[in-house]
């Protein structure tokens, strides 16, 4: 009894699915080519659409930790140093300002091009890099970002601003922070002042934090009015908007390169339709031996899914891998204008699956439909006509 029950137990796959498997593998080369074309199309489209979005989302998330407002003094020649004491007093009179920090930073020439230097106070660094660095830069020492030098840490770094100075590189910032520190050089604040030509008591700008995010925009007019000289304020939201705009341009470039991929999908659909129409005699034979239209449609569907689903899975995985693999940097050279070492990206994968599923659906849907439509159209046609029609053509 048990044996007969075992014999009657149906497997999880149906005969129809096995028949579809066999039908697909009767033309292995054709199947492989179709799967490869699909994988490449999904990988290209997915990567180009995913990359700008991933960078934008990650920068947005990282900017949450940035100061709410950056305030700089400007005049007709451009950026002007701020007197720290007077500027801080003025900023603190504005209701809603929680903290004000002067920053000393600017651009200098490094060995391989312009670099951003940042003056740090003693004692700030050990807290910031508690688990990564235990040193803070003393006079004549530098901590460099991942993209500054690829040489040994003991080598000197020559920086040229108002003066030309050599600095001993004592540590390298973690690769994981590259999106904000890639070409950053942390110096002792006195060295930074000397390189930038800033007098004591002056700073490059002020980093201001407000009590609530919604106050960023609201207190700008009060802030400007509180200073006796012209200032320019940039809020965190404005920064995020500018980055989003820049990345949108990259996204548009990506969309343009997607056009050939869409053409490739159109070609695949055409091939699929021609293939299905060319096998009308198969449909006729199936109908003649008693297959229902439902059976034929299901078999076609299984046949397409056997090829399309693994191809889509591989294509989506490759896209995901190319964009989100920890430490990926090849896109930086392509899109961000880096000539030498592009920034190392560690991107936030939230929402990636939705985009990839949309891309896969967009490419797979017409392909599967193109295989099914001839079978559905043949539902009302006589089996003899299908066989004869194929023979006639």
């Amino acid at each position: 009894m048990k044996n007969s029950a075992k014999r009657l137990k149906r497997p999880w796959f149906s005969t129809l699915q096995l028949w579809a498997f066999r039908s697909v593998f009767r033309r292995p080369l054709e199947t492989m080519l179709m799967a490869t074309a699909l994988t490449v199309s999904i990988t290209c489209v997915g990567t180009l659409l995913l990359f700008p979005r991933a960078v934008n989302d990650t920068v947005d998330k990282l900017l949450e930790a940035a100061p709410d407002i950056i305030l700089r003094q400007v005049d007709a020649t451009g950026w002007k140093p701020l007197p720290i004491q007077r500027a801080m007093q003025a900023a603190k009179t504005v209701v809603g300002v929680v903290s004000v920090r002067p920053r000393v930073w600017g651009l200098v020439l490094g060995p391989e091009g312009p670099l951003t230097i940042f003056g740090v106070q003693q004692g700030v660094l050990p807290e910031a890099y508690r688990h990564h660095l235990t040193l803070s830069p003393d006079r004549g020492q530098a901590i460099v970002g991942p993209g500054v030098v690829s040489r040994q840490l003991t080598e000197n770094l020559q920086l040229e601003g108002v003066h030309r100075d050599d600095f001993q590189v004592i540590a390298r910032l973690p690769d994981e922070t590259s999106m904000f520190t890639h070409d950053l050089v942390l110096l002792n604040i006195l060295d930074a002042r000397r390189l930038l030509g800033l007098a004591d008591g002056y700073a490059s700008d002020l980093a201001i934090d407000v009590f609530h995010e919604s106050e960023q925009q609201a207190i700008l007019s009060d802030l400007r009015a509180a200073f006796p000289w012209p200032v320019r304020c940039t809020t965190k939201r404005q920064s995020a908007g500018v980055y989003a705009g820049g990345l949108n341009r990259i996204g548009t470039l990506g969309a343009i390169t997607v056009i050939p991929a869409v053409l490739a999908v159109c070609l695949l659909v055409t091939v699929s339709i021609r293939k299905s129409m060319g096998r009308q005699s198969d449909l006729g034979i199936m109908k003649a031996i008693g297959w229902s239209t439902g059976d034929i449609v299901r078999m076609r569907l299984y046949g397409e899914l056997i090829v399309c689903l693994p191809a889509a899975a591989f294509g989506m995985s490759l896209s995901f891998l190319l964009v989100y693999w920890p430490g990926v940097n090849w896109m930086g050279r392509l899109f961000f204008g880096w000539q030498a070492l592009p920034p190392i990206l560690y991107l936030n994968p939230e929402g990636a699956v939705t985009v990839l599923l949309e891309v896969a659906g967009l490419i797979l849907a017409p392909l599967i439909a193109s295989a099914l439509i001839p079978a559905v159209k043949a539902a009302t046609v006589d089996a003899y006509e299908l066989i004869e029609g194929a023979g006639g053509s």
Partner: protein
Amino acid sequence: MVKNYRQKDAEMRISPSASRENYDRLYPHGLLAIVLLSAAFVAVMTVLSIDTGQDSIDMTQTVIKHLGLSTAALFPSGHALRDPIYLNPAIDLRHGPNLPSIIYSPEEWMHGGFLNER
């Protein structure tokens, strides 16, 4: 079980061609392997990337917060898109060492405008 189905399948053949016999077989195990490998690949990559991504974001946010950084280093230093404040319609605030300077002033010393004399 698969064997039974193969047998039934073989019975349903109308006119098997001798030349196609090599291809006219079922490969359920191979297909299952393809599907399972694909699924495993996607799952492993997802878990790996999510885990690493969150760690690096936390670390970078700590650095940004303590140093007071406000600009992402996506574009090279001095690039117009590096710092949002550079995009001023009236005044060129890029401070790039390779940009031509208009006036030689202490303000330019700070941003490195004098370096274009090199």
